């Protein structure tokens, strides 16, 4: 009988330990959730974490009519990725030197974007074909065609780059998302 009582006591002890363990694990889980909520990680990748506070800071740099949360989130991710790449590559960025926090991230991302954008190769044929196809725009007061000199080449290059810029940001962004293996984008 005593032996039986002892076994029963042991069982009760183990059950109590089990209950305590369950409560402890629930507490841990709740705490983890709370931590996650306070950090508000919206996306993460190799060596990068993007939080909700980044998104909120990004809103200050976008025109107020941008309301689409998905778009703002993606732009934030791209901005952070560009800044990180600029930092990793040791890009010299004067405008970022005196800044801190997200302002620095934004300045770095701009430097990186401008560097990449200015290095887009524009073929000689591309500029020449634009000049010849739009010849009416390049007539002087006597109705003669202005020669395609260096300054005119630069002008045409700017026009072409401007139109390419729209796709360029999206392409660059997609490349970086792939490079860092970003997770968290729907």
């Amino acid at each position, binding site marked *: 009988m005593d032996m039986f009582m002892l076994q029963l006591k042991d069982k009760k002890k183990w059950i109590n330990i089990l209950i305590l363990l369950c409560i402890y694990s629930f507490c841990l889980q709740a705490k983890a959730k709370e931590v996650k909520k306070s950090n508000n990680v919206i996306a993460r990748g190799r060596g990068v974490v993007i939080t909700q506070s980044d998104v909120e800071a990004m809103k200050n740099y976008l025109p107020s009519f941008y309301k689409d949360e998905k778009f703002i989130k993606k732009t934030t991710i791209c901005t952070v990725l560009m800044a990180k790449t600029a930092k990793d590559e040791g890009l010299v960025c004067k405008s970022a030197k005196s800044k801190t926090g997200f302002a620095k991230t934004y300045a770095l991302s701009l430097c990186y974007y401008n560097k990449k954008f200015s290095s887009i190769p524009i073929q000689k044929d591309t500029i020449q074909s*634009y000049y*010849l196809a739009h010849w009416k725009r390049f007539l002087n007061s006597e109705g003669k065609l202005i020669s395609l000199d260096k300054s005119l080449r630069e002008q045409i290059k700017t026009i072409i780059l401007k139109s390419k810029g729209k796709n360029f940001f999206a392409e660059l962004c997609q490349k970086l998302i792939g490079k860092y293996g970003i997770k968290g984008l729907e």
Partner: protein
Amino acid sequence: MSKVDWKIWHKGIRMKIFGKRLLYLGFILFFLRSGIVFALNIYYNEVKISQELKQAFQKYWMLRSKKSIKSLLKREAPYIQDMVSFERYKRYILLYKSTIKKIEVKKVDCPQPFFCAIEFKSLWGEGKKQQIYWFRDLWVKVEGKWYHVIKNPLFFPEIN
């Protein structure tokens, strides 16, 4: 019929059937590749046009009729190839759902030796449904080669 004879006979029949099938398939592929199926008649009505431009024009509209988008984009002016994405160009070309049957060139105007406008009437259709469209096609000569110039301010505002 012995077993060996039957095997030979059976193989012969198989060869005949599949041999013919392959031959037909070969013919179909040849026609598709050569563009004979997509017969496009182009009439110039005594309009003066240089041989090089004529060839470029014919090739372009042949490809347009076949809707060979990759090859077509290569025939657009280099700045268009650079500024317009393949996807948008594809969407534009596929706006014209039917195929071109006939082209009648009405006028060729070259204000510059490197720039010409070809005005033409085209007949598009599928079966009984046929439509006539008028085009003013622009062409530019770059480094000795004629290229097509898309002018559609609504679809491609950035290149106009």
